């Protein structure tokens, strides 16, 4: 790598963005890289947008990915993926996005309409190099692992993209960070197998 490898996780408070960030960072450290997680947490983020920046390189960098320098957007939620892309995506950005929507207070109340998935995907495709949309809801339901959307998305990431993680390091990262490693590893492998082909 002659410049930092930047992953931006975009989601909603409670979706496990911070846990996903920790898994990726642990895997990067295990793979022998320097790594920093740029994040903000606290009550102010309850139910709001959460962006987690993971920056991997051979030396230390600041916690925030500069504009257009994102390599991967790992989108846990369509609207937040669009928000992240609008702010920081560039020509080299590849997007992996879950299409399962988390409504906002206004869409719950019916006063605003949640943007159509197709419209979101269209813009993402224009802004970024590549967009992979996945719908993990049924698989997660089958595995009784609805909390593991974040891990599923990491599985898709590692199956489809050239990422700077050594073999086995993501699994080690998962075991180090999550509460129920057995269930999460099952989810990770399921996603990996499905998207490897």
């Amino acid at each position, binding site marked *: 790598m002659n*410049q930092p490898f930047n992953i931006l996780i975009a989601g*909603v408070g409670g979706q496990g963005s911070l846990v996903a*960030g*920790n898994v990726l*960072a*642990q895997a990067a*450290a295990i793979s022998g890289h*320097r*790594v*920093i*997680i*740029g*994040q*903000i*947490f*606290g*009550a*102010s*983020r*309850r*139910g*709001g*947008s959460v962006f987690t920046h993971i920056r991997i390189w051979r030396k*230390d*960098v*600041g*916690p*925030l990915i*500069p*504009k257009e*320098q994102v390599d991967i957007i790992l989108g846990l939620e369509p*609207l*937040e993926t*669009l*928000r992240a*892309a*609008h702010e920081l995506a*560039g*020509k080299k950005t590849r997007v992996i996005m879950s299409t399962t929507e988390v*409504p*906002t*207070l*206004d*869409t*719950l*109340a*019916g*006063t*605003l*309409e*949640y*943007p159509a998935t197709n*419209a*979101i995907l269209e*813009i993402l495709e*224009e*802004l970024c190099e590549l967009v992979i949309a996945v719908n993990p809801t049924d698989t997660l339901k089958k595995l009784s692992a609805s909390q593991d959307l974040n891990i599923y998305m990491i599985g898709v990431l590692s199956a489809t993209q050239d990422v700077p993680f050594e073999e086995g390091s993501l699994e080690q990262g998962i075991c180090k960070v999550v509460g129920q490693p057995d269930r999460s590893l099952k989810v990770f492998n399921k996603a990996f197998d499905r998207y490897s082909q």
Partner: protein
Amino acid sequence: MTDSGKAIQLMSGNEAFARGALEAGVKFCASYPGTPSTEITATLMRWAEVHGLHVEWSTNEKVALEACTGASWAGIPALCPMKSLGLNVAADFLLNLNLSGTGDGGLVIVVCDDPRGHSSSNEQDSRFYAKAASLPLFEPATSQQAKDMVGHAIKLSQRYKIPVIIRSTTRLSHSKALVKLGPINQGKWKARSIPSDLYNVPDPHLRHRDLLNKLEMIREEFESDPFNSMVRNEINDLLIISTGIGQMYVQEALSIAGLEGVATLGLGTTYPLPKELVMKALSKVDHVLFVEEVDPFVEEQVRAILEGINLRIYGKFDGTIPAYGEINTDTILNALMKMGRIWVTDEGDEIRERAARLLIPRPLTFCPGCSHRNVYWAIRKVRQRLGGRLSVIGDIGCYSLGVFYDHAMDTMQAMGSGIGIAGGLGQLSEFGFEDKIIAVAGDSTFFHACIPGLINAKHKGSDVTFMILDNGTTAMTGFQGHPGSCSQSNLMTQVSIEGIVKAIQPDELVRADSQDIPRLVDLIHTNVKKRGLKVLILEGVCALERRRAGHVIDSLHRITINSDSCIGEKCRICASQFGCPAIAWNNDTKKPYIIDHLCTRCRACIGVCPQSAIIEERLE
């Protein structure tokens, strides 16, 4: 927690501060929770027993700093972490302690600023307190420096017998990076009697003189401090001076811009300014750019010593970098553009504009099952009954979200200021002020700063209804205990809010449950109409805290909406006005429905529906 001198760990800036304290032999930590500082104390609290530390959540930051000072005087190394606004509370004491001095133990204050106000009501730059109190100040750039600076600072404090301040920011405190650990200080400390003459009278000015002398000696030490780094490269006409995490942004911006050759001076010690180091760095350049967060703190100090030197200065004074908000790598790239060092062409703006049009906001709200929503709903109803003639004076906590809840809360300033302002408004009847006044505060805020305001309101006969929203925890910052919490650990004694209020003898004192909305509306309305000081202690629950504590949701019942009695579009009160995230609107049936997996079975919405269509169902 490993004790190896070689281990490398992923640590947030706050965890690194805590680890640094452990390695520096800190044995006493007192603090009040506040984002973005909370995890420093929370982390030390987890290690307290194993490593023989005293770690406490104090009632407020001033009390915490005073407790830490006692420890330092008795020879025990002390750490006092707080958020930016906390230092305002502790400042009265700090600006006396600087002259009286600390003890053999040493004392380090870590103040965590919040540029952009991610979790704060302002974005103050607390570095001015170092200047106001004439105290040394450090600013770490990385988690590693955060850890290492604590030991460095405590030694400085022990040698000069004054408090030393370390300033962090949200991005450093919350970001996680790799930190090389050092050995934990296993030293034993025995408390001894406090030194003599720990006061500033009768000659505070001479104490001030002595402090300034110490500061000059510290300035000389800072000239060669290891946390200041000068890099001189081949582009010799420009120097960038940066502090704290700004140093990381500068390096990256120069790399993106292809300007790696620009000379840089990174300052880890920003007060007193290492003048000779700065002057030497400036001696060979014609242009200088300052990069710091939030105020032009270093820029101002350097400008003051540049008298008569011909130099083009870029920074916050000339607007090259905004003097408000957070900075990042892009801020510096923009600055380099304004300075004519780089040229950037904007591409993809049209697509971004279309993306912006598609985006909708994701506003913050009370959690499902949060009893604060019930209180504000009730206040909204009372305001309607009073024809709008009601002012709700707010305070700081989760319930501050009331400002976003149909403006149910009219004001929000500092911890405890709600009852103080209300006490003033409640005495304006002689000037024709006719609105009814409600002050709102949480339980932890009550202990922090409400008691003098409440006593003043009683003493002056103020006409106020004071509502204490008691959920038994400091919920906003992650459920820290406080003196009123039901469960107390480590031989601590519960202090009853009701007992304190009773002693102040308000005209009315009522305890009520904030789950039952119709009764709540009547209770508030009745009390607001009475004259005098009325205190309502409203017991509530924090649904998040309950879930965290392992509370299982009642699976024998569920809340549903009877679509026969629901009048749908003609009403929409539950879905569009009550604002519980567990109530959604179905665009096909034009009726609301309950999102069962989010519903906590708090039953509050049952009382909100005018058609009695929301019902509790027993599952077979």
